[in-house]
Structure formats: structure tokens, C-alpha cells
């Protein structure tokens, strides 16, 4: 009882100080303090901070989408700066790989690997990458995506969210609810949600009403499909249980309805007909983005903070990510609110938020589970292990076996040939190089993503025998573990010192050195009879790549 009171007092204290002195206390400290206070006395059991090897691996995976190269690893470990972690984070956030990995993550979040309908996924991905490279505020990004009608070529990529769902009500309203509001309103289309008391039909149809008057328009000449709008069409719905009929104007959840302005005599800028895309003077669809990103709509910022938090911390405050509701309350409601409000106060600056998150102590804890007697599971006493996304896994695999480094060498040569003054240390040089590497390896990435993507796009981890079979027997891994291609195996076999070989393998795959025990185990493995050195070494590396330590961001 006493403890509870103290915790509450602490929370209150922290919250008020957070509000009062948001300028003075950085977000990373607010987060750490808040979590420590909810852990109460148990916080002394907190796991230690992860060592440099662990940190560099973790942060490379999270911010660049792949494990570090051995050279990058060693460089960081040998760095003597006291604030080297922050320096590394700044460096990675400025790199083109950061924009790429955010592109992957948000593409899956927004589009859930939907196939192409009208907009090429590549164009949308480029749009996302540019947005993260320039650190476009998240609210501005969403505003563009929810407003673009596809008619203007420049904004066309942004329209994929709506156009490639063909603004079909079932798909689009569900996606808007899940992706932007953290609420899966699907079941609420026929009746108030059977399991979730606060998902109401009016929520579903309130969102539907924004899009009710929109339609797909095919330009008769160019055959280009875009979104047209009309001035009539209202949303009515009938509960299958009660038979009651209701109506709603556009609205977001429980915020107020957005009423149409008084009708004008000529309501259209362009009248809809077979040759012209309808453009009303007042378009309901265009009210969606402002209503969504409005400060009144706390669901919007809490959802994205929950999702970004989960990307780095391995679990959301609300899980599943799309099940915000009263009976599935956030684990840390005050903290979620204060991060979300801070994010808004910082104008939805994604890099700011990411930097603060990865520089919390919470993020930097060891992932080994802390036992605290019978207290049950206490959140954030240790870091969570995070399954690599299919893209992270593909790039890490290629990094470990040397394919990425080899491709980089080739790309650099090509760049220098194209331009004698090529400067690989400049941002533009790095961007060009990254683009070249990405283009070269994209087919392989796609292949691996196809194998490892979960059957349910919303699920973050799926393990099936097919994954294991691919790693054990698949043609790519076999090729990458062969000799004579200037890949990992060639460099390992340059020495005949077992210890050195094993250490190099561990650095390449696990981004760390083996313990004495591990060294012994691996030595035994490679010294067995009946197989050549090349064969056993190949199996050693393959086994490291097949192990759980490689599959997870620990």
C-alpha cells in the first residue's frame, strides 16, 4: 500500500515536472525516470547496460537495418570518446541507411505488403525514403498520404495508401483505423464490436463518411486512375442486432462530427462525368487529414508513439498495436501520453524521437532476463529481444557473409569511374553509394523477404519450417558460403589459426567475440575428422546464421 502510494506520488511528481520543465529535462531522462518509478524498489534489479559490442549491433540494426561490418564494429569499440554512443547515434541517423530502414518499416506499416494496383510500390518507397531522409514531420507525411488524390503526378506516390486500396470501404477504413488510430474497427462495421466495448459502429462509419463521396476515376485518354469526389452520399448504417438505423457525418472516433458548409449553388469546381474527375468546392475526403493530425485527436499521436516505441523497445505500451481500448489499457498510460505530447510539441520530429528513445538507459539495457523473486514479470528491467524484420534479416545475412561489403567495393569503383571527384565521405556520396548497393542487392532482399514475411502482415514474427529450410538448404546461402567469390569464407581461410578463424566468424555473424566456452565448442566442431577445413568452416558459419542469436536483435 505504501509502495503504491509512493509510486503514484512519484508519477505525479514526474509528470508535473515533465510538463513544467519539458525544456529542461530531456525526453530520454523523463522516460527512464518514469519507468524506474513504476518499477519502484524493484528497479535496483535492473539489468546492466549492454556492452559496446552489444550496443553497436543493436543500434546498427535499429537505425540502419543491418548488423555492423566488422570494421564498423571495431571502430566503435576502439573509440575513446566519452559520449561515443550519442555520436554514433547521430552519425547513423544522418546516414542514408537510416532513411532506407525507415522506408522499409513504414512501408510495411502503411501498406502491409499489398501488391501494386495503381501506384508502383517502388515509387511509394522512394517517397517514404525521401521523407525520412529530409526528416519530414510525421504529421505532414500523413497529411500528404491522406490528401493526395493521384491526379497530380508529383503527389501521385503519396496516394498509394488510398488508391491501392481502391478506396474500398472495408479495406480503407480498416487500414486507417489500425495504422493511424491504433484501433481495428473492422468488426464494428456490422455491429458494435463483439469483444471491445468501445469500438462502435459510429467510429467505423464516421471514418467511412470521409470517403463515402470519393470514387476511382479513370482518365479516358491516359487511363490513369485517380480519386474523384462528389458532393452527395451519406453514410447510414444498421445494426445487425438491433435493426436500428443511424447516420453520421465524418468524424474521428468520439470527436465532433464535421458538418458540411452550406451548399453552394454550383457545388463543383469540376463536375464529375465520364471525361472529368469530379472536384467539388468542398470535399469531404480532404477533411480527413486535418482531422486526423489535429491536436484534438490524441489517438493519432499515441498510436504512432506506441508503434515507434515498439520498434525500438520490442513491445508497445499497447499490444497488439492496433488494439487501443479501455480494457486493453497501455501498460504505462501517463508515460505514453507524455511522450506523445512531447512528440507533438516537437512538431512530429521523427529523428528527435528516435534519438531520444535509443539514448534512454531503458533501450541500452542487456536483454538477459532479470529474475526478481516472485514479483512476476516487471517490464523494462531488461531489454527485449526483437525478431529482425525480413528486411533486416536479409541485409544482415548479406552483411555477415560479406556480400554487402563486396557490393560496396564494386559500387565505389563504379562511382569513382563515373566521377573522378567522387567523395564517399560526403552525404551525397554516401547517398549515391547506398543507392547503388541497394539497387544491386534488391532482388536478393525481395527473395528473402518473400520467404520470411509473416503470413499475417500485422504479425511481427513468424517461424516456420520453411524459414529453416531456406537457411539450411536454400541456393543463396549456399552460394554466399562458397569459395572464390571474395566473401567471408575466403577471408576466414586466409589464416589457419583456429582461434582467429572462430573469432572472425563470431565478429561477422554475432558482432562480438566468443567466450572461452564458445571458443572451445567451435574449435571442437571445426577440428572434426572426415571433412575438409572448408566444409567444416562453412557449416560453422551456416550454423551461426541459423541460430537464434542471429535471428534476433538482442
Amino acid at each position, binding site marked *: 500500500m505504501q509502495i503504491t502510494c509512493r509510486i503514484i506520488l512519484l508519477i505525479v511528481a514526474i509528470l508535473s515536472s515533465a510538463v513544467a520543465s519539458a525544456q529542461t529535462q530531456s525526453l530520454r531522462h523523463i522516460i527512464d525516470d518514469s519507468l524506474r518509478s513504476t518499477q519502484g524498489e524493484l528497479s535496483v534489479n535492473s539489468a546492466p547496460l549492454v556492452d559496446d559490442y552489444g550496443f553497436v549491433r543493436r543500434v546498427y540494426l535499429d537505425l540502419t537495418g543491418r548488423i555492423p561490418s566488422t570494421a564498423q564494429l571495431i571502430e566503435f569499440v576502439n573509440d575513446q570518446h566519452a559520449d561515443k554512443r550519442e555520436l554514433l547515434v547521430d552519425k547513423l541517423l544522418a546516414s542514408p541507411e537510416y532513411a532506407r530502414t525507415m522506408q522499409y518499416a513504414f512501408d510495411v506499416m502503411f501498406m502491409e505488403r499489398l501488391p501494386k494496383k495503381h501506384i508502383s510500390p517502388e515509387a511509394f518507397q522512394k517517397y517514404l525514403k525521401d521523407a525520412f531522409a529530409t526528416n519530414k514531420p510525421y504529421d505532414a507525411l500523413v497529411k500528404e498520404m491522406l490528401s493526395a488524390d493521384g491526379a497530380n503526378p508529383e503527389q501521385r506516390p503519396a496516394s498509394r495508401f488510398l488508391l491501392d486500396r*481502391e478506396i474500398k470501404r472495408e479495406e480503407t477504413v480498416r487500414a486507417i483505423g489500425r495504422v493511424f488510430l491504433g484501433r481495428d474497427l473492422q468488426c464494428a462495421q456490422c455491429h458494435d464490436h463483439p469483444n471491445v466495448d468501445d469500438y462502435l459502429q459510429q467510429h467505423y462509419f464516421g471514418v467511412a463518411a470521409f470517403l463515402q463521396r470519393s*470514387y*476511382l*476515376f*479513370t482518365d*479516358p485518354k491516359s487511363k490513369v*486512375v485517380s480519386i474523384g469526389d462528389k458532393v452527395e452520399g451519406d453514410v447510414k448504417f*444498421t445494426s445487425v442486432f438491433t435493426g436500428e438505423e443511424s447516420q453520421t457525418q465524418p468524424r474521428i472516433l468520439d470527436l465532433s462530427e464535421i458538418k458540411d458548409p452550406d451548399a453552394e449553388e454550383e457545388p463543383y469546381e469540376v463536375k*464529375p462525368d*465520364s471525361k472529368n474527375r469530379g472536384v467539388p468546392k468542398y470535399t469531404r475526403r480532404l477533411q480527413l487529414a486535418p482531422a486526423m493530425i489535429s491536436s484534438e485527436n490524441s489517438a493519432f499521436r499515441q498510436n504512432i508513439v506506441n508503434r515507434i516505441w515498439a520498434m525500438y523497445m520490442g513491445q508497445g505500451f499497447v499490444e497488439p498495436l492496433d488494439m487501443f481500448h479501455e480494457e486493453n489499457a497501455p501498460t504505462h498510460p501517463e508515460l505514453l501520453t507524455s511522450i506523445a505530447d512531447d512528440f507533438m510539441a516537437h512538431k512530429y520530429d521523427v529523428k528527435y524521437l528516435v534519438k531520444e528513445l535509443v539514448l534512454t538507459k531503458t533501450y541500452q539495457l542487456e536483454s538477459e532476463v532479470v529474475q526478481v523473486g516472485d514479483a512476476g514479470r516487471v517490464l523494462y528491467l531488461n531489454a527485449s529481444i526483437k525478431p529482425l524484420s525480413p528486411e533486416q534479416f536479409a541485409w544482415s545475412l548479406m552483411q555477415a557473409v560479406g556480400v554487402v561489403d563486396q557490393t560496396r567495393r564494386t559500387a565505389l569503383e563504379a562511382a569513382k569511374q563515373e566521377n573522378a571527384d567522387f567523395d564517399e565521405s560526403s552525404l551525397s556520396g554516401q547517398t549515391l553509394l547506398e543507392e547503388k548497393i541497394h539497387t544491386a542487392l534488391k532482388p536478393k532482399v525481395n527473395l528473402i523477404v518473400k520467404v520470411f514475411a509473416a503470413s499475417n502482415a500485422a504479425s511481427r514474427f513468424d517461424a516456420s519450417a520453411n524459414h529453416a529450410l531456406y537457411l539450411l538448404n536454400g541456393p543463396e546461402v549456399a552460394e554466399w558460403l562458397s569459395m572464390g567469390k571474395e566473401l567471408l569464407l575466403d577471408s576466414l581461410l586466409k589464416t589457419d589459426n583456429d582461434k582467429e578463424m572462430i573469432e572472425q566468424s563470431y565478429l561477422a555473424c554475432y558482432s562480438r567475440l566468443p567466450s572461452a566456452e564458445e571458443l572451445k565448442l567451435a574449435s571442437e566442431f571445426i577440428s572434426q575428422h572426415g571433412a575438409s577445413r572448408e566444409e567444416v568452416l562453412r557449416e560453422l558459419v551456416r550454423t551461426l546464421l541459423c541460430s537464434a542469436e542471429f535471428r534476433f536483435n538482442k
Partner: protein
Amino acid sequence: MRQDEGKESTSQSESQAGEQDGQQVQQPAKPDPAKASEVKKFSHAEALTNCRLDPTGKYVFAGAEDFGVYRWDLETGEKVIYRGVHDSWVRRIDFSVDGKQILTSGWDGRIVVWDVEPESLKTVELPVEKDTDETTANSGEKSDGETKPEIERVVDSPVRVIEAHRGFSRWVHAGPRGKYIATCGNDKIVKLWDARRWKLKKEFVGHGRHPYAVMIHPDGESLVSEDLMGEIFIWNAKTGQRTRELKSVMTGFDNKFQADMGGARDMAFNADGSLLGCAGITNVVNSFAGQQDPIICIVDWQSKEITSHLRTKSNAAGIAWGVHFHPEGYVVGAMGNQNGKGTVEFWSLADEVEEPAEAKPMSEGCEDGASDDSADDKTEEKKPRDIKPFHVVEVDKAVRGLDFTADGRRFVIACSDGSLRIYDM
């Protein structure tokens, strides 16, 4: 009924309406879909499955989700029950060419022939409580035809019972010249019967999946049937040979549930047989929840090509349950929507293609529907035109059957709430 407008309506000529106006002199005012309004409503305790007006326009017959067939007198509202023979639902009714008999096809495999006006009716007293609340549950003002039976008037002696199909009899059609009757059922066989003695004349075998409907062409020379896979087969009535196969978009494979749904839910020829209409579904998204588009496909009989796809105004998910060629040349369809409501929609085949906006997802549906190998070049170069209705009558319940009087001034619809509604226009 035997007017020539139907023929004109096949023409692509856009001046058709004008020419028609010039020729038609016998009637002071034409039926006007815009003026269609409900004038009467009858009720039944169970959902109705279909309905037909007898050729004189005196009676309306309906099947229901019980084992009975019901006849209402349009004037008096008297309700007569035909029962005791079918032990499954009747989902299709037709009339003998002389109009004196009705033919009912049931999911019990039977075709039953009854008199439209039997010599005697049985009177059965009802136990008091049964069904009374539901039969009276309809809106006050228009319920003048409502019967509140404490007694039932029953027909239980049919003229003839034919065990027509192993598996359900899905369809019966009395050929226009009175000689033959066509049926089809879940034995996947289309059958042609001698209308007088009900002798089996010919069997037409070849549907890979259940045929849902079959019609005899007005010339009596050929039959047309459509199955679950949207395959429309045209058969030579004499030789039994299949002379043509059309692959329609009226089917879809539901990927999530791994099953096919499709087929004709109604079929009709226009008066001179130059056009065939097939009502059903397309663009299957999730048929298990009723999510697919209603569609009526129009087949030009001369070229044997699907020339038009009639789409509903709202594009609401559902099924087209009825199609009828109106003597004025337009097509009328009846929809039961996923949301429990319905419409009766009117299309002019002369209309220009509207709203290409909607054309895009539809045309993708075509690709879904047609299997790769049979999507021949012809459909590539000549895609059916999408046509939107020029008028829609909204109905607050799903509509499952539609029929018109011969003069085209009155139509009747059967609804999922057990109501039968009569409209004049």
C-alpha cells in the same frame, strides 16, 4: 407481350428511343419507371424465394422458405397454399403456355404441376396462436391485401409430380410454343421434357458444376443454361449438341474460404429472343459474407456474345435475383443487397457507358472470373459495355424475385421479410 420493341433495343442505334416514340400510338401514356410506386403488399411469415404473376395478371404466386407455394388474388388478397407435395423449398415457378397450370421446381428434386385455379380448395382450420403476430406485422396503410387467416385455403392435389432430378431441381421453364419444358438440377443435367406427357425427350450433359437455370429460346430450336462457374452453354434442342460456350464473369473463387460462388439466379429472353439476360454476381470478394457485386449480363443472341454488363447504381454488394425485359425495351433487374436492402433498377441498353470510374475494378473482376485459358482474344478486343441504370426504386428489404404484367404497367417483387409488393408505373 409479343411486341417488337425488344428487337429494336438490341440495336446500337442511339436514335432508337425517338423511333419508338413515333411508332407507338396505341397507348395514351407509357408506363413510366419514374412513377413506380407501391400499391399493395401481402405478407407471409417466412421469407419468400421468388414470385411470378400469372399471364392474366389476376394472381401472384410465390415460393417461400417453407415447403409451400402461395397464391394471392391481387384484387381480393385471398391467399391459397399449394402444399403437401414438395418437401423442400420451391425457388422457381413457371406457367404452362396456356396459363392454366403452374410448374414448381423444388430442392427436393421434384417438378410439380398444379392448376392455377383448381376446381376445389380444401379449408383447414388453424390453431389460433400460430404465426399470427408475424403475418400481421406489416405497415398499416398499404396492407389492404393482407389475409389474417384463421382458416387456410389449401391445394394439396397436384396435376402431376415429376421426380425430375437426382439432387435438387433448380429451374423449370415452359417453352414458348407449348411443346417442351426444360429443367435442370444438381445432377448437373439439363433435361428437356415433352410438355403434354412429361416424357423425357433429351438430356444435355456437360456442365462441370451445378447448372442454376435453363431457358428455351423463343424459336424453340435451342436451349441456354448457366452453371455455378458462370459458364453459359447453348444447346441444340434437337441434337442435344452443345453449340456454344460463353464464359461470363458471373462467378468467382473465394480465396479465403476456398470455394466457388456464382451462376444465374434468374434468366430471361426478350420477346423476340434477340437478347438474353442473366442475373447473378461477379467480383467475388468474400461471398461467404455476401460481398460481391450484383450483375446482369446481356447476351446478344445473334452474335452469341456478351455485349453488356448491367451494374447497379450504388455498386452495393449483393446479388441480382431478377431480370426482365420490359415491353418498352429497357431491362429491369431486382437486387438483394448484403445490407439487407434491395432495389429494382432500370437500364436502357441504348445508354452511353457511364462513369468509367467504376469500370476499372469491374474489368479486373472479368480477369478474376475468366480462367486464363478460356479468356480468348475475342473478349479482349470486345469488352462488354458497362451500363448504369437510368432509374432505381429503393426497397427496404432484399428483393429476391421480380415479375411484370404483360402490359408492363405493373410489377411485383418478393422480399426477404416475407412480403410481396405490387408496384404500378
